[in-house]
């Protein structure tokens, strides 16, 4: 075991944990103003990003190296997850800054929880052992449960938090059961190396794989819950609608990135030898998510519920890339990265329109937004068009990438279903755009005061819009780079 690399392998987590502890200690001791929180959190996230960037430069495209007795993996996959999750947490904090600052002294805990969630998300992507993956999952999920109910002002926020917690704990238990069964079938919880699961499955023909398949199915259920793939999506609309508006974007974006990173590594790298067993299951999950998400999004009257069901559909599109196995992971990353930015941007606008602490965001709030706040409306339009998959946006490039991966893998029926859903999806995305530009506010309707946008939210929207356009017009460089981010 290489001594210096051992600590560098978990350096992003160390940086974030140090930032969290420093933040909480400084908060208790000096009771500083809010800008001090921003400095500490920004330093922690910047350090995490820089260390991930170093890992990326040093290890991309190379074989996975494991450290701490096979607990943590250092490779392009884990590094890319860090490069995505830490800036995303930074953007999420900027988007939620007004919310955090309005919480009095509790704001420090809010920021600490966002940082811990980011650390947990990166752990999920970098874990090289199921025990490690489970701890990452818990660190990530528990932070999100608290964040979802943070404001404690409305009953539905408490309800969202409790629902998320109970269902999430249940999904974690299912995941853990799957780990136990896979351990029973393969005799190991470690992914790589001699005697690891990948090694065992590659070298052994299992004649009676019942326990292994049951374990695989339970793992799939546990992780599908985290990424809100149908039929394990029922928590998403209530949580996205109930949680305080400012933090919803981070909840949605981070859960997708962390869940899919874990899913991709577990399926393609660890259980790659059993691809014939899980690929059909993933294809069915993808089709179900795309159809259920799209159909239910059409009937929503609340923009946040609409975005929640659309996120179910997007989970389906991302799963579509995974039916191609390892070859689809690069396309999965592209879709995941661009979608995470889009959904963060969309919820940032929703928070500005309906309020940082508000839950509901009925379509009536959006009527005439194009005249009241043209820039906000333009940003939202861009995000929605990208999610719908209009050409020249990153959403289109992502959809083309994942569809091509699925066709190459021989899943034409899945692509046909997904394309039909994309066309149907245009309806509800355009419905919001029509409300913003063509509808006028109802007489006497109590609209929230004119949308207030903080500098943080402005920055988030600028970044999201720039990323969506740049990677929509020229996706090839990024797609090429992401080929190095495969779990090997």
């Amino acid at each position: 075991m290489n001594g210096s690399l051992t600590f560098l392998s978990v350096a992003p987590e160390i940086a974030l944990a140090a930032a969290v502890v420093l933040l909480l200690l400084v908060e208790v001791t000096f009771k500083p103003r809010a800008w001090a929180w921003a400095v500490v959190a920004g330093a922690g996230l910047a350090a995490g990003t820089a260390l991930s960037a170093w890992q990326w430069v040093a290890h991309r495209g190379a074989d996975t190296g494991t450290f701490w007795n096979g607990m943590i993996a250092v490779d392009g996959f884990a590094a890319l997850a860090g490069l995505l999750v830490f800036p995303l947490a930074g953007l999420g904090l900027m988007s939620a800054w007004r919310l955090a600052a309005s919480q009095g002294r509790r704001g420090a805990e809010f920021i600490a929880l966002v940082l811990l969630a980011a650390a947990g998300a990166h752990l999920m992507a970098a874990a090289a052992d199921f025990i490690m993956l489970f701890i990452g999952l818990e660190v990530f999920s528990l932070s999100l449960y608290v964040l979802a109910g943070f404001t404690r002002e409305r009953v539905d926020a408490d309800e969202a938090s409790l629902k998320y917690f109970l269902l999430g704990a249940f999904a974690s238990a299912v995941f853990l059961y799957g780990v136990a069964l896979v351990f029973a079938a393969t005799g190991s919880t470690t992914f790589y190396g001699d005697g690891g699961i990948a090694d065992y499955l590659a070298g052994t023909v299992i004649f009676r794989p019942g326990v292994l398949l049951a374990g695989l199915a339970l793992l799939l259920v546990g992780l599908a819950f985290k990424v809100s793939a149908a039929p394990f999506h029922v928590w998403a609309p209530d949580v996205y609608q109930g949680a305080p508006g400012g933090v919803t974007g981070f909840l949605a974006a981070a859960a997708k990135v962390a869940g899919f990173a874990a899913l991709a590594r577990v399926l393609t790298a660890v259980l790659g030898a059993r691809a014939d067993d899980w690929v059909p299951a993933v294809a069915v999950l993808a089709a179900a998510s795309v159809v259920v998400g799209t159909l239910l999004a059409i009937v929503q009257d609340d923009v946040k519920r609409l975005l929640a069901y659309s996120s179910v559909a997007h989970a389906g599109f991302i799963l579509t890339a995974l039916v191609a196995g390892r070859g689809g992971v690069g396309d999965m990353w592209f879709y995941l990265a661009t979608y995470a930015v889009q959904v963060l941007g969309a919820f940032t606008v929703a928070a500005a329109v309906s309020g940082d602490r508000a839950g509901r965001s009925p379509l009536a709030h959006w009527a005439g937004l194009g005249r009241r706040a043209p820039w906000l409306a333009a940003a939202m339009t861009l995000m929605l068009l990208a999610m719908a998959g209009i050409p020249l946006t990153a959403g289109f490039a992502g959809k083309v990438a994942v569809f091509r991966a699925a066709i190459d893998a021989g899943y034409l029926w899945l692509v046909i279903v997904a394309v039909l859903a994309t066309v149907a999806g245009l309806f509800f995305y355009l419905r919001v755009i029509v409300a913003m530009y063509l509808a006028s506010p109802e007489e006497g309707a109590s609209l929230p005061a004119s949308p207030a946008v903080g500098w943080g939210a402005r920055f988030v929207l600028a970044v999201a819009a720039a990323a969506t356009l740049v990677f929509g017009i020229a996706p090839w460089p990024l797609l090429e780079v992401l080929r190095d981010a495969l779990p090997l």
Partner: protein
Amino acid sequence: MVELVLFIIFGLAALFGAVTTVWARNPVYSALGLMLTLFSVAVFYVSNGAQFVAAVQVIVYAGAVMTLFLFVIMLVGVDRAEDRRENLPVQRPLALGLLVLFGAGVLVAGRFAWVTGAEGGRGAEGTVEALGSELFRRWVLPFELTALLLIIAAAGTVALGLFRRGEAEGGDEGEAGEGEEAP
């Protein structure tokens, strides 16, 4: 042979306890059922050579945690019957049907066979010494990272528990009325 007999007896006891926990109307029975399950699982730990974990299970879970549960039950009130009306009457049959479907699917996928040929995990000696050596050598990173979970628990409890109405509005502590904690 002895191990098999023990497994069957305590396996049934664990299942019975688990079912009681969920089905009993009286919460005290639920708690006692849970205790039965915890004890039965402790027996499994012993038969797998994990004596220390078994002892911890009995002392911490069956002892301390269950006492806490009983305290909470007593504080809430034992006589309060649980409302079991389902808002969605199809829910339970549907859940059972899906469970059967899941089992059948896995059976079909596994060609009606459960047992696999994996070697059993290598069992460590169940003593404190062996456990400590495993924990601080092979599993040191997961062990240390559970510290993050403790930080989340502390920060989350403080954040959710210290909420006072009014503070969120002004962003200043001065405005918060004393004793106005949220329910």
